[in-house]
């Protein structure tokens, strides 16, 4: 909980600094400003949507604005209807927080040029549509480094949700981190075609562990896979939020998403009229991505993890730096070159060491 409290204070501080002199005037205006948020999962998932909602609450608290959220919005036709409704009911800025909301967001944005839209994890922008994302793969790389040290078999089980670049780059970063320590390491993956389904996630985790993996990693949102690992006396990684409470003896760390600062900044910009369409993709260095406390591991592994984190933060360590081969052994990134953001964002191949095909 300490992390959450810290960010709350941070966000509150930012709000205070921003609202210095014309405090009264701004307050009156701020309360009239409405921000809208749509989530793909329930805010009770304790993962992805939960963290976005924490960001929403922090922004409201810091700025004194009001907000509306709609949870459990299916990716598809329904999303467009919900976004349109928010745009139609006086929301000045609307955050659509799942990859699958991309086209719906752009479509509605065309009809509401005065409303600002922010689409998370997407790549299509317009004058009033910005995109934002966190470099989650940085955290995955650190997880991979830890996994290589902690897995006896050198095989990690990895639950994928949907085969989009976001998930693929995470898997690749993980195996690259693993292989930086153990060149024979393997990653066994399974795609469950869902972001959130505790039962299915648990089933997939059991299958992966039965197939020889001895450590769990996941790109789905519930603590279920971690619990399965804990139940078998094994270890694993949390996802999106700190899940240590669910597996006090099993969680090694967790990549935690922090949208607080970003939401506060963007809502304020929309309110002040300084908002611009941008493409924000930040990671560990800005605090948008934080690692939960490194736990349940020996001190030397902890130190290695912290050093890796530091090296990524300072830019000393580039994750997608050649040579990197694809599954079939073909060279994807040549020795001495580093992948640019565009190539990372569009990644559609699995790196050497990942077992199992990409679903077509």
């Amino acid at each position: 909980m300490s992390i959450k409290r810290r960010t709350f204070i941070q966000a509150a501080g930012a709000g205070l600094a921003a609202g210095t002199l014309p405090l009264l005037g701004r307050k009156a205006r701020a309360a009239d400003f409405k921000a809208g948020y749509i989530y793909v999962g329930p805010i009770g998932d304790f993962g992805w949507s939960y963290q976005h909602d924490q960001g929403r609450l922090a922004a409201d608290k810091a700025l004194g604005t009001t907000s509306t959220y709609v949870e459990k919005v299916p990716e598809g036709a329904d999303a467009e209807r919900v976004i349109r409704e928010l745009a139609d009911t006086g929301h000045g800025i609307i955050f659509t927080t799942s990859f699958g909301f991309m086209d719906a967001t752009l479509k509605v944005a065309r009809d509401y040029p005065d409303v600002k839209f922010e689409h998370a994890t997407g790549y299509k922008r317009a004058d009033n549509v910005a995109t934002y994302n966190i470099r989650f793969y940085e955290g995955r790389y650190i997880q991979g480094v830890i996994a290589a040290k902690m897995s006896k078999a050198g095989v990690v089980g990895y639950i994928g949700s949907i085969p989009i670049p976001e998930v693929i780059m995470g898997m690749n970063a993980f195996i690259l981190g693993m292989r930086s320590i153990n060149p024979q390491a393997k990653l066994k993956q399974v795609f469950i075609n869902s972001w959130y389904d505790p039962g299915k996630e648990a089933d997939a985790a059991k299958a992966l562990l039965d197939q020889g993996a001895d450590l769990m990693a996941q790109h789905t949102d519930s603590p279920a896979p971690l619990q399965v690992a804990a139940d078998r006396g094994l270890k694993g990684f949390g996802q999106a939020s700190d899940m240590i409470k669910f597996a006090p003896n099993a969680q090694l760390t967790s990549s935690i998403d922090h949208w607080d600062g970003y939401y506060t900044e963007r809502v304020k910009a929309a309110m002040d009229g300084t908002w611009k369409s941008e493409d924000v993709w930040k990671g560990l260095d800005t605090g948008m991505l934080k690692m939960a406390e490194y736990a349940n591991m020996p001190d030397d592994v902890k130190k290695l993890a912290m050093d890796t984190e530091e090296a990524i933060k300072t830019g000393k360590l580039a994750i997608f730096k050649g040579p990197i081969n694809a599954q079939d052994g073909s060279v994807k990134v040549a020795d001495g070159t580093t992948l640019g953001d565009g190539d990372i964002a569009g990644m559609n191949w699995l790196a050497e060491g990942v077992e199992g095909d990409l679903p077509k």
Partner: protein
Amino acid sequence: MDSVVFTSVVLSIISASTPLLLAATGELVTEKSGVLNLGVEGMMLVGAVVGFAVTLTTGNAFIGILAAALGGALMALIFSVLTLTLLANQVATGLALTIFGIGLAAMMGASFVGQPVGKLPALDLPYLTDLPLIGRILFGQDGLVYFSFIALGGTIWFLFHSHAGLVLRAVGDSHDAAHAIGYPVIAIRYGATLFGGAMSGLGGAYLSLSYTPMWAEDMTAGRGWIALALVVFATWRPLRLLLGAYLFGGITILQFHVQTLGLGIPAQMVSMLPYLATIVVLVVISTDRSKIRLNAPACLGRPFHVSG
């Protein structure tokens, strides 16, 4: 596949099948009395959240499980009052019950999100549980798994070997005739529906206390609907229900093994398998209409009101 993996896969299949078996057994009894309650999903969710909340606050899983059964039964009571006493349409009311249950459970569970709970304790007998291969399968389960079999056995005995069961089936097959002989049709249907609700509640409690020991919104993820389909799949025969639940649970687990083994089958295809299997079996069974008619309660879903 070595023996450790075999045991572990069978254990996974049992835990995937248990919530389905519990809820479907309850629904089977409900339907045998002539009541079609489509609210299984909603009742399971309420059971899941109540079971979780009570276990967490009292620290006693047994009380939690009882409360889950009670929660499911209370949901069924709402359904019963609406459809049996006030004669509302059963299909519409059942659907509404599911939607209501999803929202109610989410509301009740809001403060329990992100809280861990201890997993239901499993049986641990000296020597027996440690037997290779079958030890943990037969002697290392938690209480709800054993109860799912006891409840199924009890249901078979009740429905087909007891007088009360005969009466219940009579009510489901011809409520007018049963009424004419003097049986309390409505009271019997109330009882069967409440039993169905309680069993759904237990199925939900298994999810939130054993399968994935946590509360998360929508955690049933459609299992209530599968339980409903299983009753039809089983053509209202309890033993076939057991077969169906385990077949379904088995495919649920094996789909991931198929995927990790890299057999080149698309993941989307594999996740369709359990549903595809249900449809295929339904079609196969439906080809022999007389068999269905033999077991299906003739008055299923039809409202009963005393005329004259």
